[in-house]
């Protein structure tokens, strides 16, 4: 069996390893478009903060890891695929045929359509190359504007702050990390950042960027302006699906996949950031561009590709973020579900916050700020759908007893 994987991120690498384990005789090829060994974008901010060396970002550390497993790393980028002919054409003109194909091409940063957005001095932070460019330009005291205070923006924020730049964050939404935090939590993160000397401008839009005497000049809505030596753009990412336009592979935001991670075209699967798969609680398809989903997608797609039919329950959105030392996390349907209930407990003075969302007596989503101990149990509760019984009422009074509820309801199985 000839397996081809497009993309050398976590989903692709885990898929390749799973294929090798499951089908020892198959041929496994990963096509990657970056020159470095497969690495984790998750680790880039830590590189940017000088906490690790470039090799510290690598997904696998063993020397000759891929060779030993008989996994071929093929440089290149897919230009198009032909499901009927079972072949991939690369941008370099090369052609690769496959029996089973996994699309794990990830996502790419997007920039808002505003004048001057492509000027020199405006960087995204997505690849190791981007990171090197930012590192070279983000000097202590330098004026840096970070466009976008989403999840990725906040991770970069940490690294930029560590480089002691004069940092301003501009965010369109009314709060920081709007996609993983509600207003209460997002505002608490914002105030936390401000207390540490970061200027935070929410509900603010950059309308244009132009060159100025000393760097860049950003026009903001409402007529204000900002001067910057460096602009880091973290306004969002989108799945890399453009090369699939003529392939017949159905896409919406990402590649639509079913409960077996199979796309609409036979023998073609998708995993990770590029895949738009079932969500665990609602069953709707969603793109969850997060490490745990990439890892599960990769593993389960590979099992299905190798002929072990494996049902995927769906992905669970979850994130954990460290914003200048304030740890926040989100799980599942933290916005709540129709007909559900929720409880919130906030202590803004101490930057602590916990929200639990229930359907009946089952936790379906959670937000936490300042919680680092046993936080994974929030996932456990959402994922396993443990019925909380009488604990539901107690948690409505004090959601911080969630670990007790969990232990009591699982009888301390451990």
């Amino acid at each position, binding site marked *: 069996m000839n397996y081809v994987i497009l993309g050398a991120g976590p989903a692709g690498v885990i898929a390749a390893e799973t294929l090798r384990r499951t089908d020892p005789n198959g041929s496994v090829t990963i096509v990657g478009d970056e020159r470095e060994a497969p690495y984790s974008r998750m680790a880039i901010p830590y590189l940017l903060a000088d906490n690790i060396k470039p090799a510290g970002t690598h997904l696998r550390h063993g020397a000759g890891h891929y060779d030993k497993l008989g996994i071929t790393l093929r440089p290149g980028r897919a230009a198009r695929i032909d499901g009927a002919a079972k072949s991939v054409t690369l941008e370099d003109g090369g052609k690769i045929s496959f029996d089973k194909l996994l699309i794990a091409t990830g996502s790419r940063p997007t920039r808002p359509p505003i004048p001057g957005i492509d000027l020199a001095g405006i960087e995204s932070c997505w690849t190791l190359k981007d990171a090197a460019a930012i590192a070279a330009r983000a000097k202590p005291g330098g004026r840096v504007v970070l466009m976008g205070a989403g999840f990725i923006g906040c991770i970069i924020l940490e690294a930029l702050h560590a480089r002691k730049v004069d940092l301003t964050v501009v965010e369109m939404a009314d709060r920081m990390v709007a996609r993983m935090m509600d207003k209460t939590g997002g505002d608490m993160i914002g105030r936390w950042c401000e207390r540490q000397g970061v200027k935070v401008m929410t509900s603010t839009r950059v309308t244009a960027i132009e060159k100025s005497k000393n760097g860049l000049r950003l026009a903001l809505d409402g007529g204000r302006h900002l001067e910057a030596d460096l602009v880091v753009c973290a306004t969002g990412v989108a799945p890399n699906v453009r090369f699939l336009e003529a392939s017949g592979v159905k896409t919406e935001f990402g590649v639509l996949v079913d409960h077996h991670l199979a796309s609409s075209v036979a023998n073609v699967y998708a995993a990770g950031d590029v895949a738009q798969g079932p969500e665990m609680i609602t069953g709707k398809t969603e793109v969850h561009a997060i490490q745990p989903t990439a890892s599960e997608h990769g593993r389960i797609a590979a099992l299905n590709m190798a002929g072990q039919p494996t049902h995927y329950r769906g992905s669970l959105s979850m994130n954990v973020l460290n914003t200048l030392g304030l740890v926040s996390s989100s799980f599942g349907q933290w916005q709540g579900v129709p007909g559900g209930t929720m409880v919130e*407990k906030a*202590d803004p003075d*101490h930057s*602590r*916050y*916990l929200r639990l969302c229930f359907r009946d007596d089952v936790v379906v989503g959670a937000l936490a700020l*300042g*919680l680092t*101990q046993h936080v994974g149990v929030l996932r456990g509760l959402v994922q396993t759908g443990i019925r909380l019984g009488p604990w539901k009422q107690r948690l409505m*009074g*004090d959601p*911080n*007893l969630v*670990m*007790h509820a969990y232990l009591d309801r699982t009888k301390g199985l451990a």
Partner: protein
Amino acid sequence: MGWQRKILVVDLTKGEAKAEPLNMDWAFQYLGERGLATKYLSEMMDPKADPMGPDNVLIFATGPLTGTMASTSGRYAVVTKGPLTGAIACSNSGGKFGAELKFAGYDLLIVKGKAKKPVYLHIIDDQVEILPADGIWGQTVWKTEELLKSKHQNPLLKVASIGEAGEKGVLYACVVNDLHRAAGRSGVGAVMGSKNLKAVAVHGSKGVRVKDPKRFMGAVKAAKEVLANSTGRKELTEYGTNAMIDVMQQFGGLPTNNFQKVQFDGTEKINAKAMMTPNAHGHRNLVTNKACFGCTIACGRIAHIDKEHFTVVNRKEYWLASGGLEYETAYAFGPVVGVADIDALTFAGYMMNEHGMDPISFGATLAAAMELYEMGAIKKDETDGIELRFGNAEALTVMAEKTGKGEGFGKILGLGSKRLCEKYGHPELFMGVKGQEFAGYDSRALQGMGLGYATSNRGACHLKHDVFAEDMEDQTGKGKAVPVKKSQDKVAMIDSTGLCLFVTAGWGLEDFQTQVDAACEGEWSVERLLETGERVWNAERIFNNNAGFTAKDDSLPERLLKVPAPSGTAKGKVSELGKMLPEYYEARGWSKDGRPTNETITRLGL
């Protein structure tokens, strides 16, 4: 090492909290906990100050072994001038609070002054806040802990607080930590209340280190084995301290009906076995045993009340399990008030913990009130319609709750036995010393205990010496002075380490020595440890002397000195305090009027 070398000083008048280095000279002289706090207290306040005024100082003190792997390392002491006695108060407690305070980085927490409005302390390592106690003041101990953990969204907080009793100045109010462990005696909770300090909530993550970790772990392991294998430890684990009630009953040293009797008809209904035996409904009082921090004994009892019992039948909130009977609570809610209803006793215990009161003082005060009632000195129209008769379980449980809440006749009971007896014109019925009520041992049967009671620096107390073996072997006052003195010094040392007195069920002095020496800087021999204990004892005594106490305060009630024990092994005997006391002063190196001589002061470097 052992010490965190840092103290936290909170001035509630100024609303300031600041960390200061620990005075290591004092630490080397006084070790920690009880001793070190005594030194700080003596240096920081005028012993004549009003205990309920802003000039009193309230110290929460850990020891060098608090928060280490030594068995029973959870102890801390609350040291202040006690309002019940006017003497130095030193009440220690287990649970988990003390270790947590140490983990936050502090050997001592010293509270001065008085807050304008009720406050509580919130301590997360170096972050210390004095926060308004809005919504918490007026709440019970149990509710306070729940509210603070919830408010700060931190189930890891350890809380020491006062209940309504401490807020309302019940003179034997205690500081309760971890729901049912208490720095119980002498009214340290009333002092906390007088400062408008409702609670201390702390979480620490700094850890505790020791001088020689490898040697320390070896010493700890060896000592734990000694303890594990000792008979005394096994009995404490299995039966708790209430195993004692049968011993005292047989011996005839069990104070009954306000010390009118020394044996009680009904111990089998409230003893350790009764706690473990299902009743007619199949309800078993004892749920489980529970340890304090670091404790490999686990003498603590967790009990629950029969749902059909009159105390809780319509009060579901008390159907929970909580701290159960120990010997002193069994005594104070049992024999001394003549009650033999185990659920009533357990309920009274809940009231003490929930509202923050010393069970010994409450029970003994109620006992005096019952005697006064039965003789007609207290009338039924004063007691909210309750028959204050010996044996009336309802009187016990209703008055426990009223006293805790400061309601009705409970307000009078909250004064303590001495003031209550004086109020009703019978001061001789107060069964205690220096204003503090006796624990559950009769000084006619246990002579050394009587001397210990009379000379205890915090007023009548059974926990400042341990001469049971001598007392049970020989029931005269002969030769008791020296063992009492030595034992007091030893206990003062143990109380200064951060460990629990109950480890003496298995440990000798060497077991303490090996652990202290491996943990603490300097060389700690047995001799140095004992001398430290003696120094602590004398420092307390000097505080009391300076507060106005003299030899005449080292006394026992006439009932024990003149009325012979009516039954038991000591039938016909009275306390021989008059003979023992001069010998004791001599052994202590004190003058006849009970003051340490200059020579003693010099010898101990006081």
